[in-house]
Each structure stands twice: as C-alpha cells, then as structure tokens.
C-alpha cells in the first residue's frame, strides 16, 4: 500500500513538474525571442506577462479537439499520448539535486538514449494518421532526421562514458566532483559537447533543424491537423524534451548538480557548496536551454539534404574520430 502511495505521489509530482516546466519554458521562449527581435513580448496577462502561458493553456483546454475525416482515428488520438509518455519515461533517471533521483538505474545513459528514440514513433504516427500530405512529409522528414542524428548524439555521450567508465548517471556526476568534464577533458570533450548540442537540437526538432514543422514550407508539419489539447500535448512534449536533453547535457559535461570547484581553493569551494545543488542543476540546464533558443532565433533553416549532409559528412566522422581521441586520453590518463 505504501509503495502504491509512493507511486501515486511520484507520478503526480512528475505531471506537476511537466505542467510547470511547460509553462515556464514557453514563456521563456517567447521572452527570449521578443528581446532578440527588439520587441517586448507578452506583457499583458499578469506581472510582465508571466501568466500569459497559463492563459494560453486555458484557451487550448477549452478548444475543440478536431479529428479530420479520413484520419485513422485511433492512431491519430494515440500519437500525442505516445509523445507524452516517451518524454515522461525520460524523467526517471534524472537527478534534480544531490540524492534526488527517481530511479538510479545502473545503465542510465543507455536507458536515456533508448527511450528518447521513441519520440520519432509519435511523430510518424501523427503524420501518417492525419491523412494530410503536409503531415506525412513532415513525419517522413522527421524520421530520417532523428534516426541519423541519434548516431552522433550517442557517440558524444559515449565520449563521456569512456572517460567515466560507467553508464550510471550518479557515477558520471560523482566523477566530476573535482571538476566538470568540460574543463577536465581538453579539446576532445569540447568537440563532443558541440556535436552533442547540434545533435540534440536536431533530435528535438528545433530550429535550425525544425524540418518536421518548417512552418514556411509545410505549414505545421506533422501536427498540422491537431488542435486543442492534443496539440498542446505535442507542444508540451517538445519543450519537456528540450529540458531533458539539456539536463543530460548539463549532467554529462557540466557536472549535473555538482557545484563549481577550483582545485584547492578551499574557501571558494565552500562558498560554492553553500549554493543548493538544485540551483546548480537548474542553472546549468536553463543555460543550455537558452543556448538552444538562441540558435532558433538567429539561424535560417537547413534544407533536408543539407541536414543529412551535415550529419553524415561532418558530425558522424568527426565524432567517430573524437571517440578514438577520447579513448586515447582516457587510457593515457591525460585528463585531470
């Protein structure tokens, strides 16, 4: 009974976190884009527009969820839930603070890369079941894109796994107690980090790799036919996905909740320790999210063939060589 209660509480907290994160991230995106575009952004609902996304959610909740005629009703309605469930599963092994982790699985990194590839199924389902040509094209693009970019994302994760020697997320964080990998690992880790950021931007279908949606070409891509809450679920899943990949980036390269330490500066290190570990974790994650948003509001979109070229001709060879380099660094113990 107690176990059941624990499950319920954890589940409710997860859903609560989802809702809050979605609201915050959408607001953040709108504010970031507004300032970059010399605009003010939402500023009418609540103080400085803070409640704007809440109002939008209410609007989406009260809208009619249409199912187009000729659509595969079951798959059409299933797709947003698959997207949501896929993202929810990813939340399990992420440590939000010191000792605050739902499930410390010993193959955490493997679990994450396995589950994150479920996202493409929901997009394919949505695109196929909508009975809309734009949706279908968007889904096909997304399939090609996610399948390719998973390779270099996986390889850059492997770089850190090689350095740490463990697949467990808590071990990876623990290995960065004396310094984050981005500082300890020299150039190869830098290369791995850049490939990781590019690959996850593509994997989450964010601009400049948002070909699955590409509003100037395919109106809205795979979710053209979705409205109301079903659309909101896709929207939410997209933002939570960004949060999760950025959290993983923070864990792998910036030490997760681990505070910033410099060698043997005892006083400085103690001050850093004083800042709560959850602040460290969310600070790093939101910094990475900001970088990904920065990409979106600066760059034009790639074309589908250029997108695949970038992966197969540049990212993949580079990250393969990079894994070799990392292995060399790890064997010879060149890192600090």
């Amino acid at each position, binding site marked *: 009974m107690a176990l059941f209660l624990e499950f319920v509480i954890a589940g409710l907290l997860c859903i609560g976190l989802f809702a809050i994160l979605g609201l915050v991230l959408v607001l953040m995106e709108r504010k*970031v884009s507004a*300032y*970059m*575009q*010399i*605009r*003010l952004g939402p*500023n009418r609902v609540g103080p400085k527009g803070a409640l704007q996304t809440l109002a939008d959610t209410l609007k989406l909740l009260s809208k009619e969820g249409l199912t187009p005629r000729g659509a595969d009703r079951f798959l059409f309605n299933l797709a947003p839930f698959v997207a949501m469930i896929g993202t929810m599963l990813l939340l399990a092994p992420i440590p939000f603070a010191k000792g605050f982790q739902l499930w410390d699985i010993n193959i955490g990194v493997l679990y994450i890369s396995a589950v994150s590839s479920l996202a493409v199924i929901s997009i394919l389902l949505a695109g196929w079941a909508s009975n809309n040509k734009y949706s279908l094209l968007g889904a096909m693009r997304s399939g090609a894109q996610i399948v390719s970019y998973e390779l270099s994302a996986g390889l850059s994760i492997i770089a850190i796994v090689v350095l740490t020697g463990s697949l467990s997320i808590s071990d990876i964080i623990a290995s960065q107690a004396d310094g984050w990998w981005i500082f300890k690992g020299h150039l190869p880790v830098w290369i791995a980090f850049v490939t990781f950021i590019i690959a996850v931007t593509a994997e989450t279908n964010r601009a400049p790799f948002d070909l699955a949606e590409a509003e100037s070409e395919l109106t809205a891509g795979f979710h053209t036919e979705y409205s109301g809450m079903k659309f909101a679920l896709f929207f939410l899943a997209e933002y939570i996905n960004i949060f999760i990949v950025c959290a993983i980036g923070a864990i792998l390269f910036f030490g997760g909740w681990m505070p910033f330490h410099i060698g043997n500066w005892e006083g400085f290190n103690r001050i850093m320790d004083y800042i709560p570990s959850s602040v460290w974790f969310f600070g790093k994650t939101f910094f990475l999210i900001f970088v990904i948003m*920065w*990409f979106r*509001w*600066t*760059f034009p979109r790639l074309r589908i063939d250029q997108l695949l070229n970038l992966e197969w001709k*540049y990212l993949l060879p580079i990250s393969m060589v990079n894994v070799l380099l990392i292995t060399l660094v790890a064997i010879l113990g060149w890192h600090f």
Partner: protein
Amino acid sequence: MTLKTYFSNIFSTIRSLLKGMRRTGYYFTHHKEIITQQYPEYKPPLPERFRGEVVMPHNADNEHKCTGCTACELACPNGTIKIVTKQEINAAGKKKKALDTFVYHLELCTMCNLCIVACPTDAIEMAQSFEHSVFDRNSLIKTLNEPGSKLEEGIE
C-alpha cells in the same frame, strides 16, 4: 575535397554563425533598442496631413463653408459623398442653392484626398482620427454638416 578545405569549411561556417549569434545576443542584452509601441496606452502623435476621415469644420457660430457645389462629389472615385441641396432665399431676396445635407459614406472612403483638393472653398478637410471600427455598418454613414448650421458670410 581536401582535408584542408573540409576543416576550413567547418571553421568559416562556425565563425559566420557565431557572428549572427553575437548580433542577436547584443539585442537580447540591450533592452533600450526595443521599438515596440504599446498602442492603447500610448498613441503616437499623428502628422497633421494624416488622412483619417473627411470632416467639415464649423466655426463658433455653427457656420460652415460648403456651398453645395458638388465638386467633391464629382471628384470622388468611389461615390463616397452625396450632397443634397435646397433652395434658400438670401437677405437680398434672391433664390439661391445651398447645402442641405452632406452625406459621407466612411465605409466606402479610401482616403485618397481628391475631394479635399477639389473643394473650391476649403469647406472639408481630413481629420487625424483612425479608430473607425463600429458594430453597425450604418453608423459609418455620416452627415458632416451640423444641424442648423449655415453658410459662412462671404463665401460664394
């Protein structure tokens, strides 16, 4: 493609992208560059030539300058203006044509200013108002001369 061009391609690409990010980053941190005007609270002053709608100015004695010559009606490309005249007997006892009602269809008007240019007595002019939306189309049909108004002295 040699290895050298391969890598120089990568570096020049990254450099050009970083330059763009520097520009958007600049605007992200410099909030005084924001150009948004918050409309209902702040209404920017409109230049005096702005063409919002046709009005007929009246002086303090409720007199206008329109003689009812229909030059504006003829000049209008859309049939926006309808002038109804009446016969009036002036002080000298002579019969004379005078303005009865000046009907202005704001819903047909394209603000082309041709009526203002055509008017020989400068009886009508453009106003700077622009918030014309109403719920009933009929309220856009306006009578420009005020009730009981008459022609100013000395205007032929």
